[in-house]
């Protein structure tokens, strides 16, 4: 097997991750909760933090990227798994309504579609993304980002005209 799995105790490994991140980057917050290392970083340093996690700390798997629209700011959660019980959860908050953040596709290529989805649903622009297109919505003639809280849904019954 070409991929080496992390070994040893989960707790010591997690504190190793936290120390590794703390030593190299300025973290806004950082703590170990259960099996999760939760760090909050500034949006500018997200690609570097993830690059450290991948290259130095060998956290190999990016599970997902969640974007939360807090109406005025966006919170991004990067969930990283080390495949052996440990989780590194990197959070960042982007102020403003037109969020821009550096892409992590060069670190975790799987982020490609996750970032496309985030762009499609929230309009988060990822700097340096190779192929930032919409995933689900129409490519043309659709200027909305449906998961924004400002995008109202209609609860009207849809097939009224057909009845």
């Amino acid at each position, binding site marked *: *097997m070409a991929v080496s799995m992390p070994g040893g105790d989960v707790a010591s490994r997690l504190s190793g991750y936290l120390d590794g991140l703390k030593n190299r980057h300025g973290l806004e917050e950082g703590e170990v909760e259960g099996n999760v290392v939760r760090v909050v970083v500034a949006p500018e340093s997200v690609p570097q933090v993830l690059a450290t996690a991948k290259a130095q700390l060998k956290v190999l798997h990016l599970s*997902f990227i*969640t974007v*939360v629209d807090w109406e005025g700011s966006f919170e991004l959660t990067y*969930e990283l798994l080390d495949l052996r019980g440990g989780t590194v959860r990197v959070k960042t908050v982007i102020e403003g309504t037109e969020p821009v953040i550096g892409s992590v596709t060069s670190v975790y*290529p799987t982020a490609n579609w996750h970032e496309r989805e985030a762009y499609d649903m929230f309009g988060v622009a990822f700097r340096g993304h190779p192929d930032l297109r919409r995933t689900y919505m129409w490519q043309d003639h659709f200027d909305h980002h449906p998961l924004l809280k400002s995008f109202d849904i209609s609860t009207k019954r849809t097939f009224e005209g057909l009845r």
Partner: protein
Amino acid sequence: MLSEERRNETVALDGTASERLARPDIRSEFGLETMDMNMGPQHPAMHGLLRLILELDGETVMRCDPVMGYLHRSQEKIAENRMYPAVVPMTDRLDYFANIHNEHGYVLAVEDLLDAELPPRAEYIRVLMSELMRLASHIPSIGFLMLELGAFTPILYAFRERERIQNFLEAITGARMMFHYFRIGGVKADLPPGILEEISEYLDGLEGRFQTDTVDLVTGSEIYVARTKGVGRMTPEQALDIGVTGPPLRGTGVDFDIRRDYPYSVYNELDFNVVTDDAGDVAASYRVRIGEVWQSIRIIRQVIEKMPEGPVMADLGRRLRPKEGDGFGRVESPRGEYAVHVVSDGSDSAYRVHYRDPSFCSMQLLQEVVPGHYLPDIMPIMGMIDPVSGGWDK
């Protein structure tokens, strides 16, 4: 019939898709052009509604670009506008071939928010249902692969088994497909009397039938071997980079299973093996699936043996108002890692729900792995991840 060298010539293992295609460019020399082709969305082998924009040089695929969204229902937005319990039936509609796992991921996330303590019987019932669902998803997936390779019969044998498993699921939950059985804090109702004996009796017959009608009929065939061996080969690093999880990842040799590494429910009390293979091709991922069928049968037997008595529902109060914060649920669905992230703001309904669907993430391998293969190889490569339209389109 098939020469291994030739496959290796055509599909070099390492390098990106563009490097693989960098061969002496006779096309420009002779002024030849490639052909663009649209596969789907209405196409019998697209596992639902998927459109592939292909660039073909003869039969060789030069570029493959999946276009999604034909089944997009914005489940995440729907989940934001409903109270917590009312989202569970909607998660059934996500990956409609492994509904139980979707429900499980969501209820785990909400229970994480609520810090709920579940009665042991509920946990065992959940594991039982999950593994039955895994059987009902893995067995037809082999049939689907054969359907796409041109053999129609194995899928009907596989669906015979799925129908019987669905009969059990229907007896337990009341519906054949959209179960809505897991509730936040437990399961909807206790098992009907006598069902455990029926299931274990059925499993005895299933072992023999699965061996003959699927394993022997399918995997022994030389044509199956020729069509799947060496097709869609990935290295472990490549698979992790693409974000593949589940059987295709274990087929490359990465020993990763949520059930063991991030245990949920009572999986840490059960004894099972994580099946891996190291070839990394379509055949390997199907060997993993077949191995997981045997492991699932083993898990179900243990669950039936250990099934405790007691209530099946924790008392969480009538109105669910979780604390503010994040809830995470992560389960091993038949297609890989299925994760749910629920953000609560303290109200009746979630502020944000995010589903990490394995079909969606694994489908990136179409972009990466398919170029350099022949056109008919797209079908086994899609069969390798066995995506479900409702899953990747949310």
